[in-house]
């Protein structure tokens, strides 16, 4: 660019009058010089080395925050170069004023050895590569990131890459994004944790019919419903009773001996005997407990009078045969029982002439 001159002051002598000539005797000239080229190189190099000797259980936080801010007020045509280089392990090969390839390897390795199992550890590596070029030709720009999360236990391993390529001017042959993700998790243990929320809701209901006196005499249990399976409600169907003559059979299965007796006298007893635990706490509360598998003993006590001598003989013979063995008993209500005679030594009495009386106790269960 050529320089320009600007006359700032002149001294002139007039030689003649109208028309005439003037003679410039002195002149002040300023040279307006064009701006020069400034080639400046601004280099910031920052190396951070943290060496921590941890005598405590664990450092709470270790942060490296590096901020580069380049603020350049350039009055010239262009800056030659503005570079910021952060090198952890950085190798740069520059072959000329316009390099064909620039290779930067930046490796961040977080390695933790944790000897405690209950720790929540968050490891985050964030890299941002930004290439901004004004006029770049024949340049290959490659960004390679390798994330290697290694740890004894990684609950969630996330690798997030975001490539943003902005070319505001110039040429670009190809835009290639190559992502290689290799995740390797070595499982050292599998924890199966069972989470159970038990909320037991039960319901039950019962009812009763009123207005009839029959419900105080008939077999009318009012059985509702319940989700409690600990107890079994009574059968709502009344047992069928009919007239029969008490008959003993032996053995119970495939009986070979049958003894027909008379029906028992009144005051016969149908007895239930349970095994229960009754305990009183120190505070006076009564605790009654019974396991459902504990035996429930049902006993019949009968007395039969007015037997014939042959019936008595047969009865004694029957006792000898079935002593301690299971027999069948058809009671006077036509219900079939199976069980054993528990008191065979009950004496046969003869209170009146030809009035032969026997009594026995039978323990068994309804068939």
């Amino acid at each position, binding site marked *: 660019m050529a320089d320009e001159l600007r006359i700032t002051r002149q001294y002139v002598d007039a030689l003649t009058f109208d028309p005439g000539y003037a003679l410039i005797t002195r002149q002040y000239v300023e040279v307006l010089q064009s701006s020069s080229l400034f080639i400046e190189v601004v280099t910031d190099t920052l190396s951070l080395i943290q060496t921590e000797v941890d005598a405590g259980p664990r450092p709470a936080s270790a942060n490296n925050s590096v901020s580069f801010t380049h603020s350049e007020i350039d009055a010239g045509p262009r800056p030659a170069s503005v570079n910021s280089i952060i090198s952890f392990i950085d190798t740069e090969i520059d072959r000329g004023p316009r390099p064909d390839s620039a290779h930067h390897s930046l490796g961040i390795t977080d390695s933790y050895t944790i000897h405690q199992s209950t720790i929540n550890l968050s490891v985050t590596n964030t890299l941002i590569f930004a290439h901004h070029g004004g006029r770049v030709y024949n340049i290959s720009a490659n960004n390679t990131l390798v994330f290697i999360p290694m740890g004894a236990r990684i609950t969630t391993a996330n690798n997030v890459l975001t490539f943003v390529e902005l070319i505001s001017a110039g040429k670009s042959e190809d835009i290639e994004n190559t992502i290689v993700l290799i995740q390797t998790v070595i499982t050292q243990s599998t924890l199966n944790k069972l989470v159970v929320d038990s909320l037991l809701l039960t319901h039950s209901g019962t009812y009763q019919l009123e207005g009839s006196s029959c419900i105080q005499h008939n*077999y009318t249990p009012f059985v509702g419903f319940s989700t409690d399976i600990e107890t079994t409600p009574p059968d709502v169907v009344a047992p069928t009773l009919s007239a029969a003559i008490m008959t003993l059979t032996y053995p119970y299965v495939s009986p070979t001996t049958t003894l027909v007796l008379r029906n028992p006298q009144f005051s016969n007893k149908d007895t239930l005997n349970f095994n229960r635990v009754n305990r009183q706490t120190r505070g006076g*509360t009564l605790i009654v407990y019974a396991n459902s598998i504990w035996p429930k003993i049902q006993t019949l006590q009968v007395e039969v009078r007015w037997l014939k001598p042959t019936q008595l003989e047969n009865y004694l013979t029957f006792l000898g045969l079935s002593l301690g063995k299971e027999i069948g008993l058809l009671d006077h209500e036509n219900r079939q029982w199976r069980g054993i005679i528990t008191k065979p030594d009950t004496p046969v009495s003869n209170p009146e002439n030809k009035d032969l009386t026997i009594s026995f106790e039978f323990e068994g269960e309804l068939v």
Partner: protein
Amino acid sequence: MIILQAPWPKVETTTILRSPQFNDVQAKQNTVDIKRAMDGAKTTYVKTTNSRYKLTYQFLVSRMKALELRAFVYSYYSSKIKLINHKNEIWIVNFISNPFAFETIGSAKGAPGNEDVTITLELEGFLISAPSPPNC
């Protein structure tokens, strides 16, 4: 009328009986043990039962009702029972009688089962509600 409901509190079954015979019993279960020293000094040991009562009812029922009560006892002999007695009192009780002897005492023509049966029940528990006494 006696109403038995079991198992309390999740009642499922209701059995209705006639009112019990006379000579029904309601007795506290507190006990006092008296020890006397050689000089005549008396020491008493009291065992309270937390306001628990023992009820003794004797029922005369028909044979069919006895079978119903037998089935009720067979199912709930260790459960808590809600009892509404002939005085309209509400009790929470347990069966404590053992054994349960259903004795046929005679014939009853026309009654279900044609027989009369007696059964004595011993129950122990708490009174939770009673009707207000008359004003007169």
